[in-house]
């Protein structure tokens, strides 16, 4: 039940958030904390993609469980402690696969919506 509520709040296609996180970590060489990831996605997409902040952390947990990202505690710019995530080798592989799959779907959708 509780899980469902979280899913409803997401404006993204299911599964896209995880891909975005992986891509974000891939583009940035330095490990990032959750807030940084959310901010980055928002900025890069020119405010179009707004990461539902509540669902970000469950997604990070999921990725960590699958071994696609790894997290380590570090002091942040605020002086508080935060978990900084970075991509693992398995995560990089997964990202390539997902992007390929995503591009295929996107291409298909574009072909349908574009005027002939």
């Amino acid at each position, binding site marked *: *039940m*509780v*899980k469902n*509520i*979280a899913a409803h*709040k997401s404006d993204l296609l299911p599964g896209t958030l995880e891909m975005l996180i992986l891509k974000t970590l891939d583009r940035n060489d330095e490990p990032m*904390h*959750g*807030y940084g990831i*959310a901010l980055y996605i928002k900025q890069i997409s020119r405010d179009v993609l707004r990461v539902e*902040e*509540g669902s*970000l*952390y*469950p997604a990070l*947990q*999921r990725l960590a*469980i*699958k*071994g696609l990202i790894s997290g380590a*505690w570090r002091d*942040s710019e*605020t002086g*508080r*402690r*935060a*978990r900084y995530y970075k991509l693992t080798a398995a995560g990089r592989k997964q990202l390539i696969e997902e992007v390929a799959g995503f591009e295929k779907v996107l291409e298909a959708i574009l072909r349908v919506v574009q005027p002939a």
Partner: protein
Amino acid sequence: MKRIAELFRRIFHLRQRSEFGAGLAEEMQHHLALKTYENIREGMSEKEARYAAQREFGNVTLLNEDSRSEWNFRWVEHFLQDVRYGVRMLRKSPGFTAVAVLTLALGIGANTAIFSLVNGVLLRPLPFAQPGRLVAITDVFPQGAFVAMPSRLKSMDVGAYLDGAEFNLTGRGEASRLYGTSVSADFFSVLGARPAMGRVFVAGEDHPGQDNVVILSHELWQKEFGSDPNLIGQSVSLDGTDRQIVGVMPPDFQFPSQKTQLWVPLHLDPRNVGSYWGGGFMPIIGRLRDGVTLVQAHSELRAALPQFRVLFPWKMPDALWSGASVTSLQEKITGDVQTKLYVLLGAICLVLLIACANVANLLLSRGVTRQREMAVRAALGADRRRILQQLLTESGLLATCGAALGILFAINGLKWLKVILPADTPRLGSITIDWRVLAFTASVALSTGIISGLAPALYAAKTNLTESLTKGGQRSGSMGSSHRMRSALAVAEITFAFILVIGAGLLVKSLWELFRVNPGFQTESIITARVTPNSSFCAVPARCQNFYDELTDRVRATPGVNDAALVNVLPLDGRIDAFAADVEDHPRNPSDPAPVLFETLITPNYLHVMSIPLLRGRALAPADYAPDAVSVALVTASTAEKYWPKQNPIGKHVRRTFVKDWTTIVGVVGDVHEENLAERFPDFIDGAIYAPYGVHQASGRPRPKDLTLVLRVSNNHMNYAQTLQQIVAGLNPEAPVSEVETLRGVVTKSASEPRSTVLLFAVFAALALTLAAIGIYGVISYSVTQRRPEIGMRMALGAQWQDIVRMVVGHGARLALIGIAIGIAVAFALTRLMKSLLFGVSATDPITFIAVSVLLILVAVAACYIPARRAMRVDPMVALRHD
């Protein structure tokens, strides 16, 4: 691999859950702090900024929870929570819990006990090395054929055994009688059995001159030899012959049966043609050689059988061994009891189903009263699956407690089972509660929990929220469907109980018919005892004869004894003495089997003591016992009818095959049941004669040394064992007296197999009937409670108490009738399966079916008695005001 890695991560996480949880909270707090900071930078006040950040983020606790559920087994947590809650609920209503647990414990316990029987006898592998490779040949073979087997059978190693070798153990205090088995030298190595002490027999020990060795059972070693650790190598006197004790077997070695106290080697002597080719025919066991299948061994045996047949020094009938085949040893040992055990298991499963239905009924009534609780839970956000899971956990808890208690019942039940089952039940000793039984019990408990809990849980989970919360709570919701379900359960209980009681009824009637059978002799006031002098003592025939003559005289002179006689084989005691015969007027083709006649050797007063009637001709006269007398005999009525129908059998002749002189028939006597109460003889016996004990030269008859004494006494209850012991010891201290028993006892014992089945079935049926009665009582009394306003209304409108009773009892009777109608249909189909257990009764015996139907209606009506009385006492005023 990936999955395993993930599982480990999860398990690791489950352990450190709180630490990670704290980390997660910290991480989220960090996020909020940054967000708030940014908001402030954009111009909000601090309070506003924090509030906006939180709003955007959502409920931290909830998300915390959500995020964490990625990590841990949520269902484990839920399950533990349900268990805790279930325990609390069950403890809150101890009456309900006790009844439900007890009902399930009875059902599960009885199932466990019967399953451990099935497991120990049928399922558990034999306690030998590589039991799957052990086979048996389904026929019997003489020594000569067995000796020829190894050179002709390449697919297996064979061993032979002959059960029923009895010995006098003398020289160690009072002489005693031991029961043993003669085995070939390689018998133990074929089985792959190792001794607990000493060694097993070695090659050659089954040959004359090397065979004075013996191996003891563990039980005999303890009982007679005081568990002497230095026994190996010592000598012991068996039947007047010294044998060296070479080994003691472990306690679990009980082959061919737990009766076996010792093993001696066979005496394979080709010079003694009679015993080598015509003596005791033996069952053969074998161990398949590597890579050989059962089918291959079977075809090899079938091909070799004609070669064995021509080895006989005389022509054997072509039909010899026509049915011989190779089967697994386990199947051969347990084949006879399979049907019985599976029928018992089926019956006890029905009892369990009734128990389940009863508990389901209890849960349903509770479900109705708990509707409000369920509604509240649903309102608080529990979905249907969650409620179902919780209710099933509760019934599972009941079943688990029931199983725990049931195992205690089963342990005690097994002790009782072992007492009432006949001692020669195969593998009786190996019946224990082992891991298989426990696994069985666990799965039974699990399914019991689901079966009894599912219907009530589905019903409860269906609860209509608004209705339950707004209405009175206790009695609202879809009452009709609950009532239908409860009635259906009661009907099912009656159906199952009906089937069981029918089974028990048929078996009881069979037993009754069995004991109504006239065995052909008088069973009252007769004491029997086996007297067994040593072979060496009877090697001098005159000495043996004198011993028995003197014994008869002395016993007859004992106060309380009216008459006494001796016989070689007492009816119904399990022994057989028979010979292949030529019968006058029945010339025989040498390739046909010879008739086999049962031979009873008797002393002069035997027929009189046993009250076996003489129908024609004359009885045996004292002159017939003279050493130089002409050989004469009596035949039984059915034998005379079979061989000389509508002729006078007096003056006809029979003789042993290969003996020149004929024996003349001088009289006809009544038929006697020798085998058991159902069958007069085993199927290979064609007829029976009585001949005088003592004459042996002319008839070619070997003189048996072991006889049974039968005494007609005036006081049945006196203990004759000691008196007889003293008399025999006075004449021959090396001759033990064994099997002292009343003839009535011998007859009863011969039916111990069917009796045990009947007893078990009757217990099951009684259990089923009680549970079903409780079930009906539950349904009716619940419905009376529900209908109180209605009953009050009826009374207020002028209904008499008779009307009310009729209404209540009619309800119960209606349920019973439906159950019985279904039961009759099912029982008609099922009782056929137990046909082989029945005697003198058809599987669809109308009297039994009618009687059991009436019985069940009576039980149903009786179960309605208390609710009906309660209904009668309803005070219209109170009932109407109640709502």
